[in-house]
């Protein structure tokens, strides 16, 4: 990247060197073009050319008064002549590469020429712009023609007369245009571009991270845009009135922002140094308008040197201090370095060390500066895009991780829940085993140990225990609230007992409603109630017929299961409530049901189990 910026810098230097060279050298003109490297001069404050006896002296052109007659301020006359062959003459043009004076008037053969041209108005204080004046053919003579130049100038402000060239318009105009393009158009162009880039940088600064570097880039660009404004004016004369007022900003407006920018690029935020820079700049701007020309000269010199030194120091500082070395940074450093170099060049001309005809060059560092701003903006933009992209990836990653975590914790919850349900179920089965099978087995052992119980009774008891166990296992099977299966299973489990009994068994189980809340404990409770009732009928009633029937009451709110026998029956009042009957009621209650026993001696028994078809709390 540095190679790229270096080659850019090199190209710019070559271009500048070539053009300045072309302007400074005495290009041997075509025979008809005269380039005056010397002229007669006399200090003479008059409106008309002084006579031959006025004391003309030979001087070299260009004539920088700061060098040739320091301290002088006033009107001087230059005189030069050239020969034209006889014949009709084309339109001729006078060209001066730099028009730097309070007032310049050209006369040819005693007649005034070339007023009213935009960049050639002799009245204008044309800071550094070239001048041209058209000469009507009628003014030209065969043989000797004399040019008089009236220059109202100040040595302190480096005014005077540059090289004068006269010749046919076709030959001389291109010289003017080239000079105007390099000195004036470039400044306008850079000014416009600086305004645009400054605006973009400003918007970018406001809209994004409020980066101070971006802010000072924008301010520097705006300063350059402002400095180019006078060059867009229709008449330099208009600006001339503001002369000394805008003289300082026109030279140094960019300097303070550029220095602050240097500091910020170096990552330094030093209020003291920055205040110093601004104070120094304000001093110059304040003193300049009220200062005499001699003082103005000193101010310009002092401020130029100071800014230059500060720039050089900060440049070294930036190079040493800053850690990042990206393209925008290198471009910026290159731009600032170029500004320093070009300033040295301009200072050299100001001090009279270089040819007076030379271009003013400082503003040629502006393109590099604008490139740097553009690169910085692009860099920020792409970095922001990359950051967004990265954030997106990061976000996706996090979402994935979160999803996985949620899934995992859900899984854990589910497992915990299942574990809980399993524990509940295990506890239930354990309790069941303990109260049901366990106690039955204990009583069975007791029967065996006593040795008094008959073998058949023991066997029957054992069968009951096994059946109990089977019912418990059945209650774990999925029935989906199908009560018909629950009732049907009781008969299945009692098959042997029923087949071995002499009673006729009538089974009237219709389609029963689904009861969704039927849990394994509920199912087991219902089965035990029925089992108990049927067992009682089989064992004690000596019935001929045992009927099991199911009905749903008219409202559909209650299910009734009845076990009816036509056996011996018993006296409800006389019977002390035995363990069996108590069990029936207790078990029915666990599912929210009730048991009703209707019996009388010799009239059989009817056990009615009523289950409300509504959810209940176990």
């Amino acid at each position, binding site marked *: 990247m540095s190679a790229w910026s270096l080659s850019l810098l090199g190209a710019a230097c070559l271009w500048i060197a070539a053009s300045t060279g072309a302007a400074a050298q005495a290009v041997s003109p075509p025979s008809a073009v005269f380039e005056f490297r010397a002229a007669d001069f006399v200090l003479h404050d008059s409106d008309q050319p002084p006579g031959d006896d006025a004391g003309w002296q030979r001087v070299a052109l260009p004539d920088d008064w700061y060098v040739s007659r320091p301290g002088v301020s006033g009107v001087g006359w230059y005189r030069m002549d050239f020969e034209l062959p006889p014949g009709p003459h084309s339109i001729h043009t006078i060209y001066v590469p730099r028009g730097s004076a309070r007032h310049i008037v050209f006369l040819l053969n005693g007649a005034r020429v070339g007023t009213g041209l935009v960049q050639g108005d002799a009245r204008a204080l044309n800071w550094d712009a070239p001048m041209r004046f058209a000469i009507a053919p009628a003014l030209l003579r065969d043989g000797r023609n004399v040019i008089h130049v009236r220059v109202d100038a100040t040595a302190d402000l480096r005014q005077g007369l540059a090289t004068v060239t006269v010749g046919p318009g076709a030959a001389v105009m291109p010289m003017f245009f080239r000079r105007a393009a390099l000195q004036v158009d470039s400044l306008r162009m850079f000014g416009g571009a600086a305004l645009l880039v400054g605006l973009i940088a400003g918007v970018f600064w406001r809209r994004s991270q409020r980066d101070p570097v971006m802010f000072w880039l924008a301010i520097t660009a705006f300063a350059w845009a402002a400095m180019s404004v006078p060059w867009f004016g229709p008449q330099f004369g208009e600006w001339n009135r503001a002369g000394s007022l805008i003289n300082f900003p026109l030279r140094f407006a960019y300097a303070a922002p550029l220095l602050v920018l240097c500091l910020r690029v170096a990552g330094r935020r030093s209020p003291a140094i920055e205040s110093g820079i601004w104070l120094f700049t304000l001093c110059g701007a304040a003193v300049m308008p009220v200062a005499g020309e001699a003082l103005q000269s000193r101010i310009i010199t002092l401020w130029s040197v100071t800014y230059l030194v500060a720039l050089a120091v900060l440049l070294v500082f930036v190079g040493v201090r800053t850690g990042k070395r990206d393209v925008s940074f290198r471009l910026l450093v290159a731009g600032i370095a170029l500004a320093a170099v070009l300033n040295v060049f301009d200072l050299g001309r100001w001090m009279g060390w270089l040819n007076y005809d030379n271009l003013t060059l400082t503003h040629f560092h502006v393109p590099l500066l604008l490139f740097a701003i553009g690169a910085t903006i692009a860099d920020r933009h792409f970095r922001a895009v990359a950051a967004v992209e990265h954030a997106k990836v990061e976000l996706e990653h996090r979402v994935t991780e979160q999803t996985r975590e949620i899934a995992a914790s859900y899984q854990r919850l589910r497992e915990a829940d299942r574990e809980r349900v399993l524990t509940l179920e295990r506890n239930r089965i354990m309790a069941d085993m303990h109260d049901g099978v366990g106690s039955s087995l204990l009583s069975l052992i007791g029967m065996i140990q006593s040795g008094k119980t008959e073998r058949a009774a023991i066997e029957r008891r054992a069968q009951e225990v096994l059946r109990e166990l089977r019912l418990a296992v059945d209650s*774990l099977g999925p*029935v989906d609230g199908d009560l018909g299966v629950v*009732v*049907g*299973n009781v*008969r*299945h489990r009692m098959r042997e007992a029923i087949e071995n009994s002499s009673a006729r068994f009538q089974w009237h189980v219709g389609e029963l409603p689904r009861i969704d809340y039927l849990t394994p404990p509920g199912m087991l409770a219902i089965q035990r109630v029925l089992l108990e009732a049927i067992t009682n009928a089989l064992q004690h009633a000596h019935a001929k017929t045992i009927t099991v029937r199911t009905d749903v009451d008219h409202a559909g709110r209650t299910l009734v299961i009845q076990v009816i026998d036509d056996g011996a029956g018993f006296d409800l009042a006389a019977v002390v409530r035995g363990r069996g009957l108590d069990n029936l009621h207790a078990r029915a209650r666990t599912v929210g049901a009730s048991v009703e026993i209707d019996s009388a001696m010799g009239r059989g028994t009817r056990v009615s189990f009523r289950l409300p078809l509504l959810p209940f709390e176990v």
Partner: protein
Amino acid sequence: MKSTRRTRVSLVEDDADMCKRLAASIRGKDWLELIATYRTGAAALAGLAAQAPDVLLVDLGLPDMSGLEVVRFTAARHPACDVLVISVFGDEANVLAALGAGARGYLLKGSLERDVTIDIRDIRNGGSPLSPLIARQVLRRLQPRRPNRGEHVAETAGRIGEETELSPREAEILNAISRGFSYAETAENLGITFSTVHTHLKRIYRKLAVHSKTQAVFEASRRGLLL
């Protein structure tokens, strides 16, 4: 039994006491002939490869393998052989698995009052009694499937459908059994003969076995083991 030949029975049971009792019951009937008893699954597989009984009694809890292996082997090797599974609880999970593997019924361990030979006679006549719980599960499994919205019904499903789905009458029979009705009561309620009920039950058993096979194939292809 009108058959002039005695029904040949083999027994696979690792519990010696149980084995002795079952053998005694079988030898007590002149129409039954006990041709072999095996104490392990491996012995049973070896023996059954050589000779096929008419009825095989298999305990599910064998020391070296699941009794289901023996059931599956026998059902594949000797389709004519009726396999009865011996179960402690007759719980639906085990029984359904046995029926799916090709068993024709089960008998409960510890039915002391009840002679095992009655179960054998039952099965020779069509099948041992189904419990209501198992009848209900069979009903659920083999209920004709109404394809759900957007559900892709495999091409083979239609072909196998008839082999695995219950007919309306079969569903009626299973429904009655699930509510506790005996075969005789079911026959009477539906206005059909007792033997027709047995015929239907036989068909249901076959469908259940086919269903578990196609279910296995379906599962395998779904998991990418086949095709």
